């Protein structure tokens, strides 16, 4: 049994933590939070690129580092812990994974080296309005290689250069690669619950696009990309949730009420124990997702669903109970608690809400049970 990261991967994680502690203290995150004109931390983005993280999982033939997905998992955990205000997930977990999964040789040769070099910021454009986007609600259309439609919210849509867009072509849903720097694309920044991450409304008017994968495969591909992203996002959630527990614990040990530290009251001790339990469940599920992702196992859809559901639950619980443990001071803008509360919402919604994943998980368990 070797259900753990290797020493090399742990070393990388440790290095990533040191790097982000130096380059991404919450004072830097707050600059993106507080300054409306700032959509992301460009200096951090460049520094992360210099670490080679964009290309960590991209094969060497496309100028990546050619490491596995496990290396990406440990990096993701540290980015989540640091609440990093950069478009890493959009670019690396969604765009790069999508191209590696279904891109033609030409698409790979064009995009992957540029992603690895930090010349591309990615985005995933699926949602068009309130509720779940399905084949029957999907409005965006492609005709003769031109895309028309409106997508919102698109995470990092205001800063991205390339997007994967879900749209119908001849009535069949497909995923399309769009160049967002083209004048046919209009962007409007959106206010979101998590201003430390960028989001936009994208309007496409006869925008030139190239299809990714086969016609009619849009939702299948989207699910496969989401599975991959879900595992990596789960590591970000584990990192954030563990940081919340540390913050809550450290405050509970220094804050006095009624003549003793609040960490000596069972109401607080049991709350923190509950956070710990959820965090460990999330971590164990994320590890299994990492294994399935790295080996391309057939269990990936089930493993990714479990990792996502546990990750969403853990980070949500830890981020809200961290505020509760802090009491009034935790409700102030100056305390960092709300950075995690906000990010936990962003991470829970970005690849589809937990309820969607629960339904997907149970459908798969049902099929398995019926087949047995």
């Amino acid at each position, binding site marked *: *049994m*070797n*259900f*753990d*990261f*290797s020493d090399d991967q742990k070393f990388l994680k440790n290095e990533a933590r040191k790097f982000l502690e130096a380059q991404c203290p919450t004072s830097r995150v707050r600059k993106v939070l507080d300054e409306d004109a700032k959509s992301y931390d460009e200096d951090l983005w460049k520094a992360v690129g210099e670490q080679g993280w964009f290309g960590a999982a991209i094969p060497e033939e496309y100028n990546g580092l050619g490491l596995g997905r*496990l290396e990406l998992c440990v990096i993701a955990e540290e980015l989540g812990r640091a609440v990093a205000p950069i478009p890493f997930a959009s670019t690396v977990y969604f765009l790069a994974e999508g191209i590696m999964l279904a891109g033609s040789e030409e698409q790979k040769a064009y995009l992957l080296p540029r992603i690895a070099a930090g010349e591309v910021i990615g985005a995933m454009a699926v949602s068009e309005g309130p509720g779940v986007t399905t084949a029957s609600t999907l409005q965006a259309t492609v005709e003769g290689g031109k895309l028309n439609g409106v997508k919102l919210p698109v995470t990092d849509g205001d800063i991205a250069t390339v997007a994967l867009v879900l749209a119908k072509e001849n009535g069949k849903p497909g995923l399309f690669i769009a160049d967002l720097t083209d004048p046919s694309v209009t962007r409007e920044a959106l206010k979101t619950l998590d201003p430390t991450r960028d989001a936009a409304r994208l309007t496409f008017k006869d925008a030139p696009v190239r299809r990714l994968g086969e016609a009619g495969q849009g939702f299948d591909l989207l699910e496969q990309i989401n599975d991959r992203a879900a595992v990596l996002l789960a590591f970000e959630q584990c990192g954030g949730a563990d940081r919340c*527990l540390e913050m809550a*614990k450290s405050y*509970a*040990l220094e804050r006095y009420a009624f003549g*003793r*530290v609040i*960490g*000596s009251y*069972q109401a*607080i*001790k*049991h709350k*923190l*124990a*509950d956070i*710990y*339990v959820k965090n*460990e*469940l*999330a*971590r*164990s*599920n994320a*590890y*299994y997702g*990492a*294994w399935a992702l*790295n*080996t391309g196992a057939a269990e990936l859809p089930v493993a990714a*669903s*479990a990792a996502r*559901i*546990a990750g969403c*639950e853990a980070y949500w619980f830890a981020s809200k109970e961290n505020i509760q443990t802090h009491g009034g001071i935790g409700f102030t803008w100056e305390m960092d608690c709300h950075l995690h509360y906000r990010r936990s919402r962003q991470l829970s919604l970005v690849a589809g809400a937990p*309820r969607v*994943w*629960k*339904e997907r*998980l*149970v459908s798969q*368990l*049902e099929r398995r*049970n*019926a087949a047995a």
Partner: protein
Amino acid sequence: MDFKDTPEEAAYRQQVREWLNANAPKKREGEPDPLGESSDGLAASKAWQAKKAAAGYACITWPKEWGGQGGNPIQQVIFNQEESAFPTPGNPFQIGLGMCVPTVMTFADEETKKRFVGPAIRGEEIWCQLFSEPSGGSDVAGARTRAERAPDGSGDWIINGQKVWTTGAQFSDFGIVICRTNPDAPKHKGMTMFWIDMKDPGVEVRPIHQMSGGSGFNEVFFTDLRVKDSQRLGAVDDGWRVSLVTLMNERLAVGGASGAGWSAFLESARQTPGLDGGAAIKDQALREKLADWYVQAEGLKHTRNRTMTALSKGETPGPESSIGKIISAVQMQELANSAVEMLDQYGIINDPSLAPLRGAFQASLMSAPGMRIAGGTDEILRNIIAERVLGLPGDIRVDKDVAFKDLPTGR
């Protein structure tokens, strides 16, 4: 990252598998008897234990001189995994070999160790642990059972009092018991541990009729039970420290709750009519719960895999292994209740010939309250995580520096 054995582990697993194939029973006769409570079951359990001991598999990590194999924890885990694939009889030796005998081995003299360790490992003698009392379960240091020096100057001790929730007392040969020896000292400083002969006329065992209908536990009464001073384990009034050694082993010995789980629920929900005449599994509320239970169960499974990985590398497992029962016992209760409510009015029927899955959910529902209490209540386990894992302070104690006899007692 993978789930494979190391070459050494694979070789050991192969060796265990071959031995089990040659020696383990292939088919269980009649209903399973998890504790080996019936006399037939007990005889089968003892015979299987003797076979394991003769081959060195009874306590794999113990030194060879004490009947073990001098093996490592991962080998014990591998043996348990392989053994669970066979319909072996119940294991009434766990408490003795997991907690009592290690305490005897730590604190008794050579002669006593030689007398007891062999018969225990071979399953010839069964041990029970006598800690909980009617006045205190979680609060072990509140023990009121008295041990006093015999007035005849022999140095013997006379024990009077009552223990409760003693697993397996009805078929145990020996036990370790914690007693109050100095009521004038603060509670933690006035207790002493002894080993006792459960067949002594001064010991009376009465089964407890549990709310689930079963009787796996007992009350044990001591009336002028006379023990030699040589039966003392550790120093006089130092029993608390001795009990910590025993309980340290308990954390390793008490596993998670089992019972009907998510897959039984799914199976049942596919076959039970739901709100609109379709199967109950179409109910969105049930689907979300099912997803949550699956994710919890998977989380625990892979937490065990992480623990095993640490053992495999020769490391001490991290604190994550402590979360098991908190999750599994509550889930057992909630899942059983949802399964019963899914049956609507029919759910009240607790007859194995009528209830789905032979009444497994009803049985789970009725035993779950005990799972949330045994081996550390939900609340005590949260305290343990908060204090030992997260390093939060212990509770403020009002009973620490007060003589035991002056403590308020309530009912």
